[in-house]
């Protein structure tokens, strides 16, 4: 259908309350973007809002068409200059913010108002490129509610509508949509991978464990209470001392920095499990690199990840969004494979010229003709017997760090222990390497899952023993066993015990923080992390096959409206059987009830006029009132064109009609 110029809603000004809803909604939708946008764009948006407000209040005119066009082209050009392109999530969002501001300045009628609200919905959805945590969910709820109110306000053409009117219909619409939204979210098939290639969208950059280790790197991480990942165990969690979350394996040492070795052969060599498997799911925060963390030792890679010869789990692409995966590990194992000569060589490599004292000590042990295990024991007893101190702020040496640590300062963090231990072993002729990752984690008893933070970052060692394979050795545990048993904050006395910015010893505050983290974890598991993988798992748990899913979705989506329709038809049918309650009928019933009190009941099939004649016969003193009220009633109900004034007269007559019980004597 078409609108015409005479329709007040089309050309006429929008009501002030509609404009107020629209401006509030767009301001709310655009507000979080301000933190990511160039300042001139936020300024442009705010100016547009203020100008439109001034127009609505009658202080300012609409801008000239040429001015608007110039502003539009200018915004597009400035976006290109600022971002280098127009296509892409970042610049597209910037352009959208600018355009929705300018759109407001040409919003004259309710149709434009509707389009502006639709732009607002797009503003909301583009924010989710940047954030998807619980706060983003709250923002979704708030902004969509206000936007929908604005949409209702724009579609309301009653002249006497108030600003409060849109709230109820908007909430009703959203609440009615919720069950459908829930089903669609759970059941609409999700696909793996993008439809087209994307530029990296992670704006967090690289965080957490790096693929190299220089002195002081892990100590810096230990000061951050940011969550690295959360994990939920299928059964009872293993003991804390077994929670070694394996990350990058570092084999190459250049005298100062440990890095990963040559790209290794894909496919794990396999191992012989010596204990029961532990199953768990991990929700990994984006860290911008490829590795996944799994307990020593993972047996099988999750879909789209690979397990290599070093037992590193690698994702296909750098992880730039929240990732949920399931792994199975065996904490006790034995490896039966042989170490290939080049592999052996790279794990024995000691850069010539560096750390001469360390090399000397190791070589003494090799010449002493000890077994590999005895050499390991020698090194560990060195850490135990001499006054080594585990500290977060060790003195940092740039050259020969291992020598300085072992023979001078004796103060170090886990990376110093691991690095010096591996060098000692290599000098002693035992193949060894550094493993980085996380150790431990905090059990959230409320949500029954483990939180692993950046402060749990750790480095340990692995040595190669004939017939046993790679064996984990943690030299830090020799010096500070409480690091493994209780965590870094228990082991390092000099730091204040801050987690989430709250002191661990302030019990209730910490409990609040844990409750908040539990909420975040549920949100991550069920909303943000819900994808193709978790969809399959959930449906399998519910006993629905892949092929049954389409049928189920179709059935539910069709079935729910059909049920609603049935209920509605039933309600309509019942409603039509009872008399429609209109005010005329209500007033007439009141009149009949008053006569009823005098003993004059109206029969069910008696017409109003027949009843009036009978009642007037019984009470001649009320004759005039009875007949006149009945005539008014008949006119109002059955004559077309009767108006409101007549109804007012009728209602007044009925109200005044209060017959006494005893007929008056004439």
């Amino acid at each position, binding site marked *: *259908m*078409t609108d*015409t110029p*005479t*329709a*007040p809603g089309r050309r006429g000004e929008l009501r002030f309350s509609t404009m107020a809803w629209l401006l509030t909604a767009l301001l709310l939708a655009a507000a979080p973007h301000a933190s990511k946008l160039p300042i001139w764009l936020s300024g442009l948006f705010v100016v547009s809002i203020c100008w439109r407000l001034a127009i609505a209040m009658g202080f300012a005119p609409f801008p000239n068409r040429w001015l608007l066009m110039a502003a539009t082209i200018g915004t597009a050009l400035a976006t290109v200059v600022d971002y280098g392109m127009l296509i892409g999530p970042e610049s597209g969002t910037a352009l959208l913010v600018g355009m929705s501001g300018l759109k407001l300045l040409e919003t004259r009628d*309710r*149709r434009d108002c*509707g*389009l502006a609200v*639709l732009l607002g*919905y*797009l503003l909301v*959805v583009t924010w*989710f*490129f940047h954030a*998807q945590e619980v706060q*983003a*969910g709250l923002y*979704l709820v708030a902004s*969509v509610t206000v936007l*929908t109110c604005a949409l*209702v306000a*724009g*579609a*309301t*053409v*009653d*002249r006497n*509508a108030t600003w409060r009117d849109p709230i109820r*219909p*908007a909430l*009703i*619409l*959203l609440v*009615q*949509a*919720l069950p*459908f*939204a829930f089903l*669609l*979210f759970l059941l*609409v098939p*999700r696909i793996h991978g*993008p*439809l*087209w290639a994307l530029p990296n*969208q992670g704006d967090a950059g690289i965080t957490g464990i790096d693929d190299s280790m220089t002195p002081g790197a892990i100590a810096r991480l230990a000061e951050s209470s940011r969550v690295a990942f959360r994990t939920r165990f299928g059964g009872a969690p293993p003991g804390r001392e077994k929670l070694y979350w394996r990350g990058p394996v570092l084999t190459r040492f250049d005298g100062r920095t440990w890095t990963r070795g040559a790209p290794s052969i894909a496919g794990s060599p396999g191992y012989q499990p010596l204990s029961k498997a532990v199953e768990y799911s991990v929700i990994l925060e984006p860290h911008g690199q490829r590795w996944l963390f799994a307990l020593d030792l993972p047996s099988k890679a999750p879909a789209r990840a690979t397990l290599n010869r070093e037992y590193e789990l690698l994702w296909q692409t750098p992880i730039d*969004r929240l990732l949920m995966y399931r792994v199975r590990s065996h904490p006790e194992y034995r490896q039966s494979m042989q170490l290939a000569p080049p592999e052996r060589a790279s794990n024995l490599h000691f850069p010539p010229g560096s750390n001469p004292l360390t090399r000397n000590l190791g070589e003494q042990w090799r010449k002493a003709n000890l077994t590999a295990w005895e050499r390991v024991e020698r090194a560990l007893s060195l850490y135990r017997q001499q006054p080594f101190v585990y500290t977060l702020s060790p003195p940092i040496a740039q050259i020969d760090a291992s020598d300085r640590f072992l023979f001078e300062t004796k103060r170090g963090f886990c990376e110093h222990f691991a690095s010096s231990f591996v060098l000692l072993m290599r000098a002693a002729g035992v193949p060894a390497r550094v493993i980085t990752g996380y150790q431990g984690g905090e059990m959230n008893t409320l949500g029954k899952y483990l939180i692993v933070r950046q402060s749990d970052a750790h480095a340990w060692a692995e040595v190669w023993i004939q017939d046993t394979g790679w064996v984990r050795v943690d030299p830090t545990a020799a010096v500070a066993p409480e690091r493994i048993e209780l965590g870094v904050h228990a082991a390092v006395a000099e730091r204040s015990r801050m987690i989430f910015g709250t002191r661990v010893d302030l019990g209730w505050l910490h409990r609040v923080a844990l409750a908040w983290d539990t909420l975040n974890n549920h949100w991550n598991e069920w*909303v*943000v*992390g819900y*994808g193709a993988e978790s969809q399959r798992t959930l449906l399998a748990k519910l006993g629905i096959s892949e092929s049954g899913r389409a049928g189920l979705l179709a059935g539910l989506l069709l079935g729910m409206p059909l049920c609603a329709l049935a209920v509605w038809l039933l309600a309509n049918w019942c409603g039509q059987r009872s008399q*429609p*309650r*209109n005010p005329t009928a209500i007033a007439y019933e009141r009149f009949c009830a008053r006569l009823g009190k005098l003993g004059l009941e109206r029969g069910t099939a008696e017409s109003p006029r027949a009843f009036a004649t009978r009642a007037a016969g019984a009470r001649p003193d009320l004759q005039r009132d009875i007949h006149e009220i009945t005539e008014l009633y008949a006119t109002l109900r059955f004559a*077309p*064109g009767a*108006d409101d004034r007549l*109804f007012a007269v009728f209602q007044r007559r009925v109200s005044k009609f209060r017959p006494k019980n005893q007929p008056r004597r004439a």
Partner: protein
Amino acid sequence: MNFPRSKTFRLRPIRERLLARIERWATRRRRPVSGSAYLDSRTIYILPTRNGLVFGMMLLVMFVGATNYANSLAFVLTFLLAPMGAVSMWHTQRNLTGLVVEAGRAEPVFAGQSASFRIPVRNRKPTARRSLGLRTRTGEVAHFRVPGSERKLIELQVQTRARGLLNLDRLTVFTRYPIDLFEAWSWIDVGASALVYPKPSGSHHLPEALGAAGFAEARACPGTDDFSTLREYARGDSPKHVAWKASARSEGLLTKRFDGSGGQQLLLSWDATSGPDPEARLSQLALWVLRAEEEGLRYELRLPGVEVEASFGRAHRHRCLEALALWQGSGHD
């Protein structure tokens, strides 16, 4: 339908043609009814509006984006908005069901003025019906709301152009409530009509030479006290005829009455007018009727085939103007 066409939106002519076809099909067996029309799901039609189409496209973009970026919250928003749009369709349709539109009435007007139809709309459901509109074929719109179980008189202004009987044979009741993604409408054939008098125009001088012998005498009346009786002032009386002196002595205003004193009467005849355009001649006669009534004269109207006997007063004026409005022309015309 002479709706103004937008140059910017190409879909509109297609849409209009489609709607005209639907209308012909939907109402092929209808006859205009006097009385009332009840709206139920069989007579209500619904289509997406332009905003509704844009909304659909927006959802598609959101869905593709959400899939591509595997963005869960984008999925949440898409899957919330899509059923909201669908639910709104049901609300839009329901906003019309249970309404009863009755035959309206309008006071006679002169051609060129707008006729004000008062159309009763009853809401048989207990919930209020909001943001409704009534539209005529010529595009006049009245917006209104009807509270639950109530009856409202909706005033619909219709621009008149030519004299005669203006039939409001087909009305469209429509609504886009609550979110303007769909428009539901129904065609209503209630027999309502307004009488449109010819537009008064031409010479203000009453015909002197023709018909009335005592006209000059009658014309002189307003300056003198030569009137027959006094009556109570009624709305519409010319202030020139108010007997101010007499009124000062009595309680209310009094108007002088010149009911044919001396037996003079004016003959307003088709033959006294001239010109090629019969409409212009009718307009001249209409103007004379108004003038004569204003002057308080008795007058008689003679049209080819129609005669209204000499009299005066509001009822007589209406009879004359009605005759002028409905005159169909004589045999030789």
